Structures are given as structure tokens and as C-alpha cells.
């Protein structure tokens, strides 16, 4: 596998003590004067927590912002679906939390595959996020005395999670959306909904624009700016079935990769253990059930493979509470990656339950006996309702059936400390970048990262770029780079529509998803990854010969959008397999069966793999080149995670 020899990745981490780096950076960072800010146009793609907060903040500072989203409204980005909460090192409960502890929990939870300085900064600004959200009118849960309530979450020993019922993501997103709306009203932000970014325009070595498709008219549009902020979320939908929204996709990020931005750690995907299992081939997405259910529910499978009895008729003696058996210290509360792998192991061994046999029980019978049904209803009522609505079963009477599902992707475009990619002027925020969660993300920290990047990091680092870079102020959309990018997008759309083969985009997507799930999912092997890479390449070639896209370009055409996105997912899928192959260790969500301890736990290799793998595109059908950013841990001791 080709690998770059000389280090080309400069993370630009400021010197000094970890605790002082961000302040030191801010002390000397270049500024853009108010009069000059309005001369700069910033293109912000995506309106989730990262994009919405960035666009609102930059608009508030006086930049001219153009904000794009694929949905019909900026309020619908998939950040909205986050349930549990948002972490912040406020230490309101006085239970010993500090910025350092939040930093430490996050870096350890990520299995030591994240950059120290970025994670520390995240913990530092976490408190400001809560202040900002409250000032916007986000209705966080409160105690009777009127102060903010906190709850505990996986991977932490303190209660630092702020929440708004089970709709924290929604409330935070509506906060940013309203702030964005305010800036739209002032005229600083121009909102362009129902636009899909199809390409990045790099002119004279700088990211200077994007090509978008108006999803209603099919019109391709050119937008020029002084910097591009990519805030387009993760790529979990590559697996077809995931907890992501149907429109979540990698296309914008993938176009940037093909224009020179490196893609880091694509194999780091998070598989969430408590989702409602698949019920049939028509299934279009999976629904997450909050992790909090494992506080009172017990996970089990029948001891005998293929036990045909309904759960109520399986006596205690014939049940295997495998998490409690294997991890006596943490029991049902082991981290997400561990719980997911354990469920897969039981189902692979034939002990799965339900008609598909791809599920395990999450049983509340004992908790109901102990606490009463009312107590359980108060704690989890809305989740139980949702389960009943989707499955048609009453979880108060029969155990829930759950199975892991793809939920979040830690990998993403490589960025330095300033959130800038290897393409100058292209910044990546939120889930779309790779920077803060290493190989596994802790609960309640995705919202934190998206908002940290948008509210508190990018306003400084973008200023640094703009003040320190001499950009051609006369560059317009008539520049050749625009024409070339638009032409490429156009050609692709025409090919998709004119092929008129015999397989739909959904059928290709399902096949791709199956390949990724089986081989680049919860447990990976060399053979599996190699076979998957080959199979995906073959599927990709088949795609361009047999794809059938209905309708035309000049109207609203969802299946044309899908087809383009799935073509990109297939290329990404190959890279995911390649990255997983190159990483000869097990860490966080990446579990290589070759690298495990005698009792089946993940075996990390800090000697050879304490780095981020950043892949550079070299051409279609050509192997990408791997660059490595070594991760140096000056402040934390690398230790192995044990939950026994």
C-alpha cells in the first residue's frame, strides 16, 4: 500500500502547556477589522449544529455569509435527532468535574486516537456552549429551585450532561436555527435551502467556491467566496441501514477529498448497541433507543441456540445474561462498542431472538418488579411508547428486542488545529471532520463538538486565515475552475440519467450496505476486508453500467439525488475497507479479529498505530496515498480500557 514517506501533515498545534494553548492562540491570532469583514463572503455548507452555529456567528460578526442546506429548511438537519444530551464541564452538581476530567474522559473514551490539543479546547469551551444556548432560550431541564439539571451518561463518573427531555439535539438545533434566522433577517446571511453541494472549486490553490444543484429546478449554480466551511455531517448512511436521516450523505465531503482534502480514519464508525432491530427487506432506516435504557434493562439471550420458546416461557436457568457474565464490574453498562460486539457474538453463535434471529432481549421485568411499572414509565415512558409504535409490542409486558446499528462516524476530513483541511481555505466542522473523538465517541459529546466548532473555534481560526492570506479579490464565477467543476457535475448527472439500466439506486445502496455491514462493521478480518474492497469495486463498476434513474434533471428528483450520493458512498466504502485493512490493531469502534486478547477484548497497538491515517486522493481507480499524523500524548498515560 502506498504511503507517503515525508511528513506533510502539519497539525499546527500551538506550543505551550496544554491548558494554555487555546488562550495563547487567541492572544496572537490575526484579526479581520469590522470594515473588512463585510467584504468577505463565506460559504457555509450544512445547517446542523456546526454549520448553523458557524453561519449565525459569522453573520453576527459582520461577514457576508451564504448558507446552504439540502433540506427544505435550515431547521431540519440531522443534529435534530440527537436524544440524550450535551456534555459540559460546568461542575454545577459539585461532583468533582473539571475541564481536565472532561478532556480525559473524551480522549480515553476515544481509545487514544484523537489529538490532545483539540480535545482539550473542546472541553475548555464546553461551558460557553451551555451559556450561549440558555441565552438563546433553549429550554434545558431544570431543578425545582430554577437551576439547570444534570444527568450522568456513559463513560463518565460525574453528572455533566445537560438535556431537554429526550430532544436535546432538537432544542440546540432550533437555538442555532433561530440565531441563524436572526442573521438572515439582518441581511448578513443569505439562506439557500434545497441546495446540494456537488463540487468544491479550488482556484489558484485556494478553496474559492462551490457548485450547487438547486434541488427543485435542477439548475447548477456557482458560488464564489473567500473560504468554504464544510459542515455536512457524517457518512454512516454508507451502510444503508443506520440511525442517520435518509438524506445524510458524504457527497460534499467526498468532492472535497477528490479536490485535495485528505480523508482521515474513515474506518472509525460507531455502532450503537440499543436500536430497534430490522424487521424486513423494505426497512429504510433504524431507530435508536437511548443508551439510558441500559441503566434498568438487563440484556440476555437464551442459552440454547435457536430456542423457539417465547421469552416469558424461558426460565432463568436457561437465560444467559452475557454482559453481566462477561463484564461483572460494568455489567449492562459497558461502553457502546463493547456492548455492540457482544450482541453480535451471541447472534453469530445462533442465540439471537425474534424472527430474524438478529436481536437480543433488553428485559425490564426485574426492574418493573423492583420499582413498579409507574417508576419505569416515568423514566422511560417516551422511549417505551416509541418502541411500541414501531414494533407493535408492549415492552412493559414482553422484553424489548434490540440490535446494534450504525450511528456516528468518528472519521472524516482531516483538519489541523484551526479546522482547516489540506486545501487552504477549506474548513471542516462537526461530524464531517475527524478531529475530536478518536476511535469511539462518548455519549452527549457530538452536540458539544458541533457547537464548539461553530460558535467558538471557527470565528478565530477563520479570521487567522483571512487576515494572513492574500486572496485574489477580483476572482469571480467566470474563472475557469468554476466552469470546469460545473462541467464535471453536469456530465455526471447526464450519465446517471442516460444509463437507464435495470437496477435502482436503492438496490445498489442495499448491496453496498450489506457488504460494509458484514465486513467493515462490528468485527473485521483481513480476508473479509480484502473481499469487501474487491466486491465494492465490482459493484461500483456495475453501478455505472446498470443504474436506472427515473425522471429528468430539470425538476425535483429525489432518486437522481440518491443515485449521485450512492456513487460516492461506494467510493468511500472502498476507502473504509482500505483504512481498516491498514490499521492492524483493534481500537474503539474498529475491531480487527486478528488483534484481540485471549478473552476476546480489543487489543490496541500504540507502538505502531498511535496516529491518524489521512488518505490522499490520487485519481479514479488509483490507490490513494496514506499520510500519517502521529498522535503524541504528552499529558495522558495510554492505558488499556477494561470493563471486567
Amino acid at each position, binding site marked *: 500500500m502506498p504511503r507517503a514517506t515525508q511528513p506533510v501533515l502539519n497539525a499546527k498545534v500551538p506550543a505551550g502547556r496544554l491548558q494554555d494553548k487555546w488562550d495563547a492562540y487567541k492572544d496572537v491570532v490575526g484579526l479581520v477589522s469590522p470594515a473588512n469583514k463585510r467584504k468577505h463572503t463565506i460559504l457555509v455548507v450544512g445547517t446542523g449544529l456546526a454549520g448553523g452555529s458557524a453561519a449565525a456567528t459569522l453573520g453576527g460578526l459582520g461577514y457576508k455569509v451564504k448558507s446552504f442546506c439540502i433540506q427544505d429548511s435550515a431547521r431540519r438537519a440531522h443534529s435534530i435527532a440527537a436524544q440524550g444530551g450535551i456534555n459540559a464541564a460546568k461542575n454545577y452538581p459539585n461532583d468533582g468535574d473539571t475541564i481536565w476530567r472532561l478532556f480525559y474522559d473524551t480522549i480515553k473514551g476515544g481509545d487514544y486516537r484523537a489529538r490532545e490539543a483539540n480535545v482539550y479546547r473542546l472541553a475548555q469551551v464546553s461551558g460557553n456552549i451551555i451559556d450561549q444556548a440558555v441565552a438563546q*432560550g433553549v429550554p434545558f431541564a*431544570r431543578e425545582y429551585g430554577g437551576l439547570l439539571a444534570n444527568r450522568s451518561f456513559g463513560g463518565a463518573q460525574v453528572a455533566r450532561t445537560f438535556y431537554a427531555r429526550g430532544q436535546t439535539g*432538537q432544542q440546540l438545533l432550533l437555538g442555532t436555527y433561530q*440565531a441563524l*434566522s436572526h442573521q438572515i433577517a439582518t441581511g448578513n446571511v443569505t439562506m439557500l435551502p434545497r441546495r446540494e453541494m456537488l463540487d468544491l472549486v479550488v482556484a489558484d490553490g485556494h478553496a474559492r467556491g462551490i457548485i450547487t444543484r438547486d434541488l427543485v429546478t435542477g439548475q447548477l449554480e456557482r458560488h464564489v467566496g473567500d473560504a468554504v466551511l464544510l459542515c455536512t455531517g457524517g457518512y454512516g448512511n454508507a451502510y444503508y441501514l443506520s440511525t442517520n436521516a435518509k438524506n445524510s450523505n458524504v457527497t460534499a465531503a467526498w468532492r472535497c477529498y477528490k479536490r485535495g482534502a485528505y480523508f482521515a480514519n474513515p474506518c472509525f464508525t460507531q455502532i450503537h448497541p440499543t436500536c430497534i432491530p430490522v424487521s424486513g427487506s423494505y426497512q*429504510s432506516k433504524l431507530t435508536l433507543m437511548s443508551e439510558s435504557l441500559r441503566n434498568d434493562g438487563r440484556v440476555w439471550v437464551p442459552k440454547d441456540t435457536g430456542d423457539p420458546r417465547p421469552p416469558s416461557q424461558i426460565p432463568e436457568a436457561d437465560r444467559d445474561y452475557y454482559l453481566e457474565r462477561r463484564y461483572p464490574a460494568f455489567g449492562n453498562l459497558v461502553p457502546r462498542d463493547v456492548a455492540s460486539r457482544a450482541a453480535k457474538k451471541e447472534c453469530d453463535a445462533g442465540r439471537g431472538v425474534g424472527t430474524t434471529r438478529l436481536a437480543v432481549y433488553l428485559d425490564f421485568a426485574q426492574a418493573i418488579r423492583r420499582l413498579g411499572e409507574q417508576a419505569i414509565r416515568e423514566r422511560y415512558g417516551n422511549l417505551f411508547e416509541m418502541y411500541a409504535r414501531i*414494533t407493535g409490542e408492549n415492552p412493559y409486558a414482553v422484553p424489548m428486542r434490540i440490535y446494534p446499528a450504525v450511528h456516528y462516524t468518528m472519521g472524516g476530513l482531516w483538519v489541523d488545529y484551526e479546522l482547516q483541511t489540506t486545501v487552504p481555505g477549506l474548513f471542516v466542522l462537526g461530524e464531517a471532520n475527524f478531529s475530536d473523538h478518536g476511535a469511539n465517541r462518548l455519549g452527549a459529546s457530538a452536540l458539544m463538538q458541533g457547537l464548539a466548532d461553530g*460558535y467558538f473555534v471557527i470565528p478565530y481560526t477563520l479570521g487567522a486565515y483571512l487576515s494572513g492570506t492574500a486572496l485574489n479579490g477580483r476572482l469571480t464565477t467566470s474563472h475557469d475552475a468554476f466552469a470546469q467543476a460545473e462541467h464535471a457535475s453536469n456530465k455526471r448527472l447526464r450519465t446517471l440519467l442516460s444509463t437507464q439500466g435495470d437496477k435502482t439506486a436503492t438496490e445498489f445502496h442495499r448491496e453496498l450496505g450489506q457488504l460494509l455491514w458484514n465486513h467493515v462493521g462490528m468485527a473485521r478480518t483481513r480476508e473479509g476486508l480484502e473481499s469487501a474492497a474487491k466486491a465494492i469495486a465490482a459493484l461500483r463498476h456495475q453501478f455505472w453500467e446498470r443504474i436506472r434513474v427515473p425522471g429528468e434533471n430539470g*425538476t*425535483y428528483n429525489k432518486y437522481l439525488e440518491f443515485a449521485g450520493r450512492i456513487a460516492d458512498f461506494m467510493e468511500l466504502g472502498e476507502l473504509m475497507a482500505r483504512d481498516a485493512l491498514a490499521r492492524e490493531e483493534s481500537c474503539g469502534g474498529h475491531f480487527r479479529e486478528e488483534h484481540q486478547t485471549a478473552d476476546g477484548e480489543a487489543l490496541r497497538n500504540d507502538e505502531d498505530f498511535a496516529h491518524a491515517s489521512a488518505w490522499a486522493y490520487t485519481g479514479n481507480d488509483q490507490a490513494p496515498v496514506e499520510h500519517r499524523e502521529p498522535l503524541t500524548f504528552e499529558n495522558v498515560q495510554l492505558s488499556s480500557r477494561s470493563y471486567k
Partner: protein
Amino acid sequence: MAKSMTIYLRVWRQAGPEAPGRLVDYTVADANEHMSFLELLDVLNEQLIHRGEDPVEFDNDCREGICGSCGVMVGGIAHGPQQRTAVCQLHMRAFKDGDRIVVEPFRAKAFPIVKDLVVDRSAFDRIIAAGGYVSTTTGGAPDANALPVSKEAADEAMDYAACIGCGACVAACPNASASLFTAAKIAHLALLPQGSIEAPQRAVAMVDQMTAEGFGDCSNHAECEAVCPKGISVHGITRMRREYIKAVLR
């Protein structure tokens, strides 16, 4: 085992905003009770694409009832017959084998049809932009606990803030009024000290914008509350009127 069902759909087809529309009959023979209603449309669309026909366009995204993208009239009711459920979480077990279901877009002059079941709800964004926010910029916010908020106020604010902006309230309202949507935001922010400072201007600005968008008046049918996937109470409309009256009498 999942029961197999045959469902007879009558779906509104309209090529574009100005094109004439009509109801077209389709049969989905291999539906089953565990499918969501949108998955039923997915299955229909796959069949249509293979037959060389145009698939039925409908907005959808998260498919877990929170993004507010989806929303169609199912059998004459916004989001279908199951209350407090967005159509993406409506499952076919709510129907019987052999049912005939009319599927139409949300209809309002302020929600022009884009294509088939897809409508343009940007009027909602303009109502929010008229004043549905607290005028802050990033930074300079006081400590989050500096201003206590009673639990009752926070809880009631959350009840209104839960609005997903799907437009079902408008679609179901006999008058095509956007009062519940507008009121939910006015009430949410007015209940909190952070939002109460601008409450009078907000109420006037948002009501004015709602009027300018061409929505109808509220005649207190409360149909909106019945179809709202989040069950937002029409008491919000009372709160909106109070804020508005206060603003005028100020």
C-alpha cells in the same frame, strides 16, 4: 410472522407548481404491518421506477418523527389516523388488508406544491426570521445559571418548543391558519426570562408576517392540536393573543 397486506392507494400527482394535478390509483400488493407508511411509498416507488414510471415525490429525512420534513394527508388526516405520530412513524398495522387510502399533499396557498406530495413551507422560515429568536450574538452570554427559571415555566416552554415545523397544523386547519406554529414559538420564548424581553415586538412581528404569508385566521377549531405530532396545545394560541394584546396596549 408479519401479515401480508394489499393496499390500494390514490395518490395526488402533480408535475410542478403550475401543472394540473390529479389523483392516480396504485396497488401495493406486498405491504405488511411492520412497514412504516413512508416505506410503503418506497416500495411503490421501486416498482414504479422498474416499470419506467415517475416515482411519487415526498419530503422525508430523519424518519423518526423529529425533523419535520415529512407530512402528507393520509385518508384526509394530516399525518394519518394515529395521533401524536408523524407519518414516518405511522405503521401499516394502523390499516387493514384491502384498505383504500387517499394520499394528498398538505394544502395551503402559503404552501405551494413543488411536486406531487412535496410542498414549499418556506413561509414558516420567514415567520421565524421575523422575530422567532432572542436577539443575541455569540459570546458575552452570562453564566447559564445566572438567571433561574422556574421548573414549571421551563417545562411549559419545552412543551411549545417541541414543535417540529412540519405544517400539519396548517394542513388540517379548516382555515389554513398557521396560528399554532407561530404561537408555539411566541409562547416558548415568552415563557422564559431570556425571551420575555422582546416578547411584545416578537408577537407583533411574527403575527404580521404570518398574515403577510397569506395564512387564514384561527377560528378556534383546535384541529391543529389533534394532528400535531407533538400534541402542542392550542393554549399556545391563547398565549400568543395575550402577548399580542399586551404589545398593543403597552
